[in-house]
């Protein structure tokens, strides 16, 4: 048996998906292999197992803080109000949070400083102290039903939230929202889930498509997909894992741009203030349309579309595009306008620019629950100057 086949079978063995014929094949290999081959096989198994373990745990660790918000502490009552800013953070965690920020600083500062001219040292540092407590809100969203009624999803009790015709909307114990049709003749209405600035939420659509909504975003969808295709409308940013259904294409409408998929994982971003819509494909295939222009994306590609133009980047940084879903704010060659737009959305503050804006590009990645104060400190160290008044940040030239 060659190494390729051996690896293939080992992976299946770990997954528990070996057919009985394959199991026999593997067993007989082990029984008849020479000691050297057997040693190599076990080493390969060991290696595979180690890589898998580290990947799983590292991946889990990236979502550790986001998952922490799903814990139901004994002292909470029914309305789990995420007043994160008021909670006093133990020393250890502050240290880790600051260490993470400093690490990003160290990695990014060299790049940043090389690109930034030295600014005057007079600093408008006042007002930063009050921002230590300003952190993103976390899981927070509003569900708007077909008849216009609204339900605050984060504070709603678990169980049945509403009946939409013959479709029941439920919230499970982990906060997940899902739709269950109770009959085949579901009368269709439209629901919308909105996230505020600083919020994010995860919803499962009636066809089991998974949607992660970023801050200041929304998704509008029917309570049951009964037509020839499955059509939703999204504003802001979302990451989708579309349930496979070859007979019914899934279409995401983003204003002028529409994205057509069959069964796939991709990220869409269309914030009005940022300009073009961005579609990043991780798995599967999608077709992006804007006006008369179309582009078919392969995994790893990213389309930027606006005003009848669709540009494709064949080697996009997909992990940067979905870093937000994994709990990081990621900037890749972003100018200060883009960065402050994201800061506004994520911390629910207002940013105003006075005078000329620097066109220098910055890059970096920080954990999403970094406090606003730490983010502004980083920018300050990178040479930016600003004035803070209440919830408004004035960027100085």
């Amino acid at each position, binding site marked *: 048996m060659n190494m390729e086949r051996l690896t293939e079978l080992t992976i299946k063995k*770990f*997954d*528990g*998906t070996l057919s*009985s014929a394959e199991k026999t094949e593997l067993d007989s290999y082990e029984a008849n292999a020479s000691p050297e081959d057997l040693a190599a096989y076990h*080493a390969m198994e*060991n*290696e595979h*197992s*180690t*890589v898998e*373990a*580290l*990947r*799983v*745990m*590292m*991946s*889990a*660790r990236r*979502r*550790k803080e986001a*998952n*922490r918000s*799903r*814990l*139901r*502490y*004994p*002292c909470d009552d029914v309305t789990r109000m995420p007043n994160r800013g008021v909670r006093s953070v*133990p*020393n*250890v965690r502050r240290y880790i949070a600051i260490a993470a920020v400093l*690490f990003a600083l*160290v*990695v990014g500062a060299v790049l940043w400083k090389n690109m930034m001219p030295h600014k005057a040292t007079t600093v408008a540092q006042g007002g930063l102290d009050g921002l230590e407590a300003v952190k993103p809100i976390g899981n927070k969203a509003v569900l708007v039903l077909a008849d216009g009624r609204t339900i605050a999803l984060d504070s709603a009790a678990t169980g049945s939230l509403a009946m939409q015709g013959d479709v029941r909307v439920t919230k499970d*114990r*982990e906060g997940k929202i899902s739709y269950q049709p109770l009959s085949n003749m579901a009368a269709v209405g439209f629901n919308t889930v909105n996230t505020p600035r600083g919020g994010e939420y995860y919803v499962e659509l009636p066809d089991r498509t998974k949607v992660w909504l970023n801050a200041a975003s929304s998704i509008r969808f029917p309570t049951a997909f009964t037509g020839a295709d499955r059509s939703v409308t999204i504003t802001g940013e979302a990451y989708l894992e579309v349930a496979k259904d070859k007979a019914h294409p899934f279409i995401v409408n983003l204003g002028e741009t529409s994205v057509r998929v069959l069964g796939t994982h991709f990220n869409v971003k269309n914030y009005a203030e940022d300009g073009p819509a961005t579609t990043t494909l991780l798995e599967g295939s999608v077709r992006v349309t804007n006006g008369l222009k179309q582009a078919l994306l392969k995994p790893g590609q990213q389309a930027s579309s606006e005003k009848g133009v669709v540009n494709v980047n064949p080697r996009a940084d997909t*992990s940067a595009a979905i870093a937000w879903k994994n709990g990081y704010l990621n900037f890749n060659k972003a100018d200060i306008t883009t960065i402050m737009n994201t800061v506004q959305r994520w911390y629910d503050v207002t940013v105003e620019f006075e005078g000329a804006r620097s066109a220098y590009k910055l890059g970096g990645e920080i954990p999403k629950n970094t406090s606003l104060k730490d983010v502004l400190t980083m920018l300050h160290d990178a040479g930016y100057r600003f004035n803070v008044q209440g919830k408004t940040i004035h960027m100085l030239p």
Partner: protein
Amino acid sequence: MGGHYPEDSLIADFKKDSRKACNEIYDRYYERLVYYAYKIVRNQMAAEDVAIMAMNKLFEHRDTIESLEQLTGFLLRTTRNLSINTLKKETTDVSRDISYSSEFESDQKADALFLESERYYNLLQSVERLPAKERKAIELYLEEASYQEIAAELKVKTRSIKKINRRAIQLLAKLLHPSRSGATDPLVIGLFILLFRF
């Protein structure tokens, strides 16, 4: 992680509804529970869901917990049961034969699995304690980036990636304790082979 919480008061505080104690428990067990669940359900998101559910169940049953061993046992049993239930509810096209989930119902397997989680968790901690460049190189490797890509991301020459990996392995070996027989932990050997293959 978790070295700063006074051991003697953890259980007592936990039973008194201390949020700090709850967070400490979450911090300590989260990654291992996710891995444990992953070994059964074979899906990252499902494994994380199970870990959170198990944690919440523990919080609900804090009155029954008298010791750290009991706490650990509760978390493991709950994680195992929730994982097996998740498997049973699986509706994807993946076909696992029935013996797959029954394998995990044995207590012996459960203990072995937990020991495995512990060992890999220790390895993870060691990797996290490496200096930034070495750690980043390993992280990138795990994400299956090619050496060129890793070099580009770290902005160093490809040849020095091999040097960084070698340094990483040496440091790792120092950080991990050799077993009683004097041989290095097979997990470190696994990582050696991994990183040396290039």
